[in-house]
């Protein structure tokens, strides 16, 4: 009873405040048949987009409530396979060993990762190969790729960060020998950005959303780090945001949410949060 009334109050609040980060002109009809709780766990990188989608969906279907816990992509996929959530969220492609026959995937957005350096650095352009060499420790001086004669300060993320695994996979770092022991490990996009902003010889990588004037995002193989270039595949450091689910365990409401995520309204939420839409 208590929980229900809290949920009802929360939904009422959302409705009353008119929180609609993304337009919902098209499907204003209220479907009373959908009810229940959808449990989503997984990637923390998808949080902004997902929270917007959840608000929007709950506004459309007041008897549905969605609970999201950010626990990391690997944990989200594992939760789905263990049956403890309805939908798992991942900010990387699903690995071969994680797949099984019944596990379904739905890409609902793309995200770009930008290689960033200090604004004082004269380097403008970098290649995937150079990134792999820098992060594996083969290249240690900026002069080797056309910069000043200074040692490179490499900043990476903690093991099992979604951004890190996407970055390492996309640059082919494991084949290049793995992360150098000379690299600093920062916990989160924010600390990486702060470390790079505070050190003129640093290089790091962050989600597109974390690019600002305190750091300089590098062109990759000549492609600008923009959503457009990521969508066309011209910019190589981009990754998909994926929902994973079992059709029988997702529940009716969950399936409706999955449909909503790739609908026009859902994609507005992606765009609003600087994500890259599917289409």
């Amino acid at each position, binding site marked *: 009873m208590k929980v229900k009334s809290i949920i009802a109050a929360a939904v009422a609040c959302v409705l009353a405040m008119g929180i609609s980060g993304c337009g919902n002109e098209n499907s204003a009809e209220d479907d009373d048949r959908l009810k229940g709780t959808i449990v989503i766990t997984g990637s923390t990188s998808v949080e902004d987009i997902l929270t917007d989608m959840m608000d929007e969906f709950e506004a459309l279907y007041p008897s549905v409530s969605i609970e999201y816990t950010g*626990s*990391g992509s*690997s*944990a989200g996929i*594992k939760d789905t396979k263990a049956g403890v959530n309805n939908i798992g969220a991942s900010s990387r492609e699903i690995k071969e060993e994680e797949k099984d026959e019944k596990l379904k995937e739905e890409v609902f957005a793309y995200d770009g990762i930008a290689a960033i350096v200090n604004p004082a650095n004269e380097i403008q352009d970098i290649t995937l190969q150079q990134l792999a060499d820098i992060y594996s420790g083969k290249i240690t001086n900026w002069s080797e790729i056309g910069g000043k004669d*200074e*040692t*490179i*300060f490499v900043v990476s993320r*903690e*093991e*099992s*960060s979604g951004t890190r695994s996407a970055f390492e996979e996309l640059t082919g770092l*494991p084949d290049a020998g*793995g*992360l150098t*022991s*000379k*690299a*600093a*490990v*920062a*916990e989160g996009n924010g*600390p990486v950005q*702060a*470390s790079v902003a*505070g*050190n003129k*010889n*640093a290089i790091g990588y962050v989600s597109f959303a974390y690019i600002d004037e305190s750091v300089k995002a590098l062109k990759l193989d000549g492609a600008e780090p923009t959503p457009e270039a990521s969508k066309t595949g011209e910019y190589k450091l981009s990754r998909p945001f994926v929902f994973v689910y079992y059709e029988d365990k997702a529940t009716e409401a969950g399936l409706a949410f999955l449909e909503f995520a790739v609908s026009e309204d859902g994609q507005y939420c992606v765009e609003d949060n600087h994500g890259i839409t599917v289409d």
Partner: protein
Amino acid sequence: MDNNMGHNEVKPDSVNETDISIQYMKRNVKRDITEKIVETIFLLCALVGVLSVTAIIFFVFYKGIRPFTGEDAYSIKDFLTGTKWAPSENIYGIFYMITASVLSTAGAILVGVPIGVLTAVFISEIAPEGLVKIVKPAIEILAGIPSVLYGAFGLGVVVPLIMKITPEVQGQSLLAVIIVLSIMILPTIVSLSESSIRAVPKKYREASLGLGASKIQTIFQVVLPAAKSGILSATVLGIGRAIGETMAVMMIAGNPTAGMPESIWSMVRPLTTNIAMEMSYASGRQSEMLFATGVVLFIFIMLVNITLIKLTSKAGEK
């Protein structure tokens, strides 16, 4: 008559006595029950602490010992002597983290304890009252600052300063950790040292001054030796605080995935940081290894506490 009188007198008396004794008994029963209830409440309160500690120890050790037992067990020797942490390659070595924790704690004690003790001496022996009113609250506020703010201060001020003088390319370093930890343990050192210095009897000072010693001589030759055990306890508590600090350290240590610290300019990855960085994401073997890291940390903390108990009991014997 006499008999009657006696009877009459005795009767009401005896009635009264039994009445009173019954009343007493009633009151005692009531009081006993209340006593029992209150005692039980006290006991339960005490048990909360004891049970928590037992549960934490059991949980951490149970999880932390698992990777070293059964099939596919990881070698304890590799774990304790390895200098590379790469969960994706199934390599878990924490020797360089143990070294980092020990070095940063030792450094913080080396810098923080002298500063803290001299501050305590200043507050309790030398400073005029007006100045004490400024210095003491300042130190106390230091104790209340959340450690994430120490980290932010470290990253925003200490790391850039180190960057100006370091031969390395980055400012995140053992030195940065030592500086921030030294500041963080100051309140502990100062407040405990101060109270033990204040507890030194006035006549010690009077005797020393009377023999012609100067104020400074008195402080170093009489007051500080007399307050020794309190200062030692303060130091041990400082060690506990420094070795267990996580958030602030995580932001300024650099946390490399491998490699022994070679100098104070090197980046380090203390035990606490290792656990905090990965625990929220980790699962399976990696998570168990983080608990194993916790076990090592726990053993360090227990050593610190045992030392503290030994020290304080010695001080009590005096």
